[in-house]
């Protein structure tokens, strides 16, 4: 779980001086971040600080303006790179689950792996069943997503993302759309993935969870990474005044 330095080529995901604007709005202003093999990095910061945009840039759902992003040491932000091939190697989980409402749980989990040619139909089904069983959703495989609770839907979305064994998982505030009592079951699954050594970049508002699961925490404010370091250090004794202010606001709101 070496915390690789940005640009030294040893990291799974390398974000190099990435900038991104939407019209006049500069969302990312030169972000540098590396996520090493088996490492979990939590991205924290206020809404609008650029966490989601950074994750979406890594999955090539948004095109970066300046800088580069590397996956396993290879540039993926060049126009010649096929984004579909990159996305097959990454898993993405959305805040609002985004399951496919017309497909049942099993089909949701297997569709990507089968259609993108990563697994045979039988292999994908076996894998999906094994994971659904393991995470307590075995009896729901024939249900449509709208018959599931929010927590169950998000667990299905997580399983859908990592069933094809991606190189890394990108989690975009996966508990923010959930009722408080459903957050635990989703975080438990992420914890399991971490213990299996899944490489993860996690945007989150759950400070307790970030401290527990993440190896490092990166604090993003206004499109800049202001502080990156070991989870306990950043959360318990932040060195930057902005980080202290942000965490202080969370404490006041009873969120951490």
């Amino acid at each position, binding site marked *: 779980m070496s915390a690789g330095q940005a640009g030294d080529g040893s990291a799974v995901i390398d974000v190099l001086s990435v900038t991104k604007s939407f019209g006049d709005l500069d969302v990312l202003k030169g972000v540098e971040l590396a996520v090493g093999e088996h490492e979990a990095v939590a991205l924290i910061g206020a809404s609008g600080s650029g966490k989601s945009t950074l994750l979406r840039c890594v999955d090539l759902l948004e095109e970066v303006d300046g800088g580069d992003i590397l996956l396993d040491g290879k540039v993926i932000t060049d126009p010649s790179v096929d984004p*579909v091939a990159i996305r097959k190697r990454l898993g993405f989980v959305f805040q609002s689950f*985004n399951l496919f*409402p017309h497909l049942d749980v099993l089909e949701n989990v297997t569709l*990507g792996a089968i*259609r*993108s040619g990563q697994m045979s139909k039988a292999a994908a089904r076996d894998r999906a069943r094994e994971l659904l069983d393991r995470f307590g959703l075995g009896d729901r495989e024939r249900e449509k997503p709208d018959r599931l609770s929010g927590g169950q839907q998000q667990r299905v979305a997580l399983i859908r993302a990592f069933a094809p064994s991606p190189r890394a998982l990108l989690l975009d505030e996966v508990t923010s759309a959930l009722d408080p009592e459903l957050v635990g079951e989703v975080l438990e699954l992420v914890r399991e993935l971490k213990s299996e050594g899944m490489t993860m970049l996690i945007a989150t508002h759950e400070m307790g969870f970030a401290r527990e699961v993440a190896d490092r925490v990166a604090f993003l404010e206004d499109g800049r990474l202001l502080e990156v370091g070991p989870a306990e250090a950043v959360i318990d004794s932040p060195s930057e005044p902005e980080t202290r202010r942000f965490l202080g606001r969370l404490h006041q709101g009873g969120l951490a």
Partner: protein
Amino acid sequence: MTPPAHPNSTEADVIPGGPLLPGDGGRQAARERARRAKTRRGQAIAFLSSVLVLGGLAVAVFTSTGWPEVQAQFFSVEVFRDSFPGILSAFWIDVQVFLVVEVIVLILGLFVAVVRTSTNPALFPFRVLSALYVDVFRGIPVVLLIYLFGFGIPALELEGVPSDPLVLGAIALSLAYGSYVAEVFRAGILSVHRTQVESGLAIGLNRFQTLRHIVLPQAIRRVRPPLLNDFIALQKDVALLAVVGVIEAYRQAQIDAAANFNYTPLVAAALLYLAVTIPMARLLDYISRPDDPSRGMAK
């Protein structure tokens, strides 16, 4: 909660059924009785209102001075019996036309809608043509299109182009309804939320696979009611082929009416159209029922 009655209050004495005290064990039974009474009252009112309105209408029609004449002219059992078999066999043409045209319309409409909603630059000329096609064919009365196709195309005397008015009329119908249905499909495609596309891309599908496996299945489910509505309209509009000389049910009924100096054959034809459109309408109601679990709306 009802406040406890004041010990000296006489108010309770005037409320029927005694004082309203909270926690009275008989209240649930009383509420159920009241609910049942309300239901019975509702049924009685609906029945009475139906008798008054429908009965009134029937009385107005059947006692009008012209009714005996109308009955003889439009509802003659004898003429009905004589003309019905011929109209029924002519109706077979209507059925064949709308079955074939419906399939063509589905394929054409879906194709045009997919092209129009695509973003691929290579498809730009096709997008322009699709938009033009929809604008033109949606904007011309169907009867006029049938006329133009049925008489105009044979007049060109082109080699290998069909000259059968039935075929040409069916082509005109297909193009007209294809443009309506293309817009229905397009609305459906645009109604599928962008996050569904992103989700498809995120699991490693390409644009086409995302369209095929994620967007279209949801779009088509959502537009089934307006689609069926267009099909009902199409089933009636097959009668317009009469203007280019196709002897389908309506035209056959017209011929019979002229031969008998009696309009009953037209009523017979109307009944045949209803026989296909009413089941379609019920099917429409069935698939657009609000709790349809198969619709799977994205939240």
